[in-house]
């Protein structure tokens, strides 16, 4: 009986393992494929020879991509927009979520409804353009980082987190003579590292991937972020270059290997950052407070 149970368990484990390995492969292979195509010879790629191993691999595509002044410059811009934007995002989101989480905040539900309203209703791109134009933000970095300063959904996540911090903590802090600001900075923030890290990552990825505001509100190519340049290289080769019919007929089609190299260059930094922040997702909520 017991032996049988062990055997069944082993079979289950093996099946489970096989299933998970298969799942991992389906997730990892596309990324791996992109990588081997990006280092392979262009003609071999055209012929569709790349299956499991790169063909006559070299770093030439990466050299070409990293030599491109547009790409380098846009990389710098993306970095700037992402760090500035995320800083503004996280600060304002926390400032907004904190009072809304406090029961004693005057008119709490009124403000909450006002803010949540914007989640479901918005003016659309044209009024937004007019507003940003009227504020004089067109063709500046602020048109990219300010309008999305607070993402309501992330704000709600943060508020919910703040709300779960027991009221007793506030009480004891008040008794010790702390005011609301002090409580926020000295107690709530340190307790909220997991949620702040999570939200930071969300914002970080959002800014990193964002191209639409840049497309709409920036005029000069020298200010474009990475994604806009990459999108053009990857998509235009497929669709637009063909649509504008006779136009690009004589221009070469951007090679698949170049496209993939650009994609990898674009996603690499986020791939590197992710594991470091990811641990906070797993971490429990109330790390080391109010035990017992």
């Amino acid at each position, binding site marked *: 009986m017991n032996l049988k149970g062990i055997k069944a368990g082993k079979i289950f484990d093996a099946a489970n393992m096989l299933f998970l390995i298969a799942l991992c492969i389906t997730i990892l292979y596309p990324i791996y494929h992109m990588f081997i195509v990006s280092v392979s010879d262009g*003609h071999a790629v055209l012929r569709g020879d790349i299956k499991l191993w790169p063909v006559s691999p070299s770093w030439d595509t990466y050299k070409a991509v990293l030599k491109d002044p547009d790409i380098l410059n846009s990389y710098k811009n993306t970095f700037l927009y992402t760090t500035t934007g995320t800083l503004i995002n996280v600060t304002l989101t926390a400032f907004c979520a904190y009072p809304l989480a406090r029961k004693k905040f*005057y008119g709490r539900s009124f403000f909450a409804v006002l803010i949540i309203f914007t989640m479901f209703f918005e003016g659309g791109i044209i009024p937004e353009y007019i507003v940003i134009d009227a504020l004089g933000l067109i063709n500046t970095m602020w048109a990219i980082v300010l309008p999305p300063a607070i993402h309501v959904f992330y704000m709600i996540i943060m508020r919910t987190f703040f709300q779960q911090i027991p009221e007793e903590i506030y009480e004891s802090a008040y008794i010790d003579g702390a005011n609301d600001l002090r409580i926020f900075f000295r107690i709530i923030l340190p307790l909220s590292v997991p949620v702040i890290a999570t939200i930071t990552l969300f914002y970080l990825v959002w800014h990193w991937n964002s191209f639409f505001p840049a497309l709409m509100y920036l005029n000069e190519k020298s200010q474009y972020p990475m994604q806009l340049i990459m999108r053009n290289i990857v998509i235009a080769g497929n669709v637009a270059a063909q649509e504008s*019919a006779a136009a690009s007929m004589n221009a070469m*089609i951007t090679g698949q290997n170049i496209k993939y190299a650009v994609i990898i260059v674009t996603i690499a930094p986020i791939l590197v950052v992710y594991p470091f922040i990811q641990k906070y997702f797993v971490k429990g909520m109330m790390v080391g407070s109010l035990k017992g």
Partner: protein
Amino acid sequence: MLKTKKLASGLMCTLLASMLLIGACSNGNNSSPTEKKDAEGGKQSSQPLKLSWMLEDNPNQPILSDTPVIREILGQTNVQLQLEAVPTSSYEERKSALIATNNIPDLLTVDLNDIQMFARTGIFLNISDYLDQAPNFKKAIEGREDYKKMLVDGKLYAFPTLEYYRVAVAPQPLMRVDLLEELKLEEPRTFDELFDVLLAFKEAYPESIPFVGSRRGTTYMLGQLAYPMGAGGFEGFSETGMYFEPRENKYVFGPTSENYKDVVAYLNKLYSHGLLDPDYAVNTQEMAVEKLSSGRSLFTYDNNTHAVRLFNPAIAEINPKAKFDIIGPLQNQYGETRSLRYEQDWLGTSTAISSKVKDPEAVVRFMDWLYSEEGMLATNFGIEGETYEMRDGQPYILQKILDDHKDQQDVFSATQSTLGVGYLTFAKYVHEGTLADISEDLLIEMSEYIDRLTEEGTIRFMGIDPPFTEEESETLRKLEVQVTTIFEQNVDRFIMGTRQMSEWDAFRQQMMDAGVDKIEKIYNDALSRL
């Protein structure tokens, strides 16, 4: 006490947030680059005319902001161009937003649709009023009747891009000519002979799929084959079945025309013999190129440049003898030999002027200069002596500049990008001499062949649709969707043989009932108004 405290803490937060915002905003204003530039420009004494120009930035030829040609233009015309290069992939979105908010830059690249839709709103300058300032342009459009299709109420609202000299490109039958030799076959001269040759290929190489069919779905394949086979519709990259039939001298809806049945029957014959790729309807560009350049497919009907630039170099690495070349011209069963090439000029890449510019005459004069001999040379070759030289009256890019780019995958585009010249920047009068200069001999031979057939009348330029009124456009949109949907849903079944050709007449009637007559009438009325 407690209540005030609550209020105070709430206020603090709001204040902090708004302080951050205000700080950021005012910062933004200070560092706005356009304002800075304006201020600097104002101090200069020579006062060049500043023009902002929004155009498409094609990744094949990235637009740089400081190029020889911009300096040359400043020197020759005292115009300082500020290029707003918007990625091709998102150009439409950006353009629509700017037009909708009435915020367009001084110069804007537009297509025919924009001109028809927005010219009457007054957002674009009416150029016809200033044509006396544009002698070069008037000379350039002489004899190019198609430009009349750009007019709105008889007025010109945008400067079209015209062709000065061009390496000809056309969809042509491209075949592995080395296999013809190997199998001792005659080059086919008719579509029936083409069938026999493909059949012989299949017998000799049972693993192969002789005809790849299409790289953009069924209608693209039909568009390539229908006109040469005596019918028409969906030519080039057009999404509609309407085409100009020179035999009848009017617009006709291809799929319901008399000869169309034979086109579909021919494809059905290819399909049933295993000569047409079973995946023809779903092939993407990558898949089609892969099949042709790996030797699995042996024939396609597509742009001749693809053979030279894509298939031949890739297949040469695994089979040095392999070579794709144009065959034909192929005669159809009515004894006609005819095919199409892309439009002569780029009316769909036109430049509109904002009606808000301060000095419209000066702007029109500048645009006109782009069509002059000096303007054409500057926007296609750069600066004489510095980037190009004249030999035997022909401009040539200096060898040392070409050498700088010789490691690039695409020498032509890379050179054009560095100099900031050519169609993909802002040349309005396009001279592709550089391309001819550096291209493979095969491409030049093909180009001369296409030009020769054009002169003989065998190859005709694809036309563009005549301009419609708003009401007509709306009716057309509705009817064309109806008819095209019926067509697209069924034509594959005929080609694949799941519907018998004997049912074609009933199918044709079904399309007729959906409003083909009305569509044809609208097109021909619009044509007669020109």
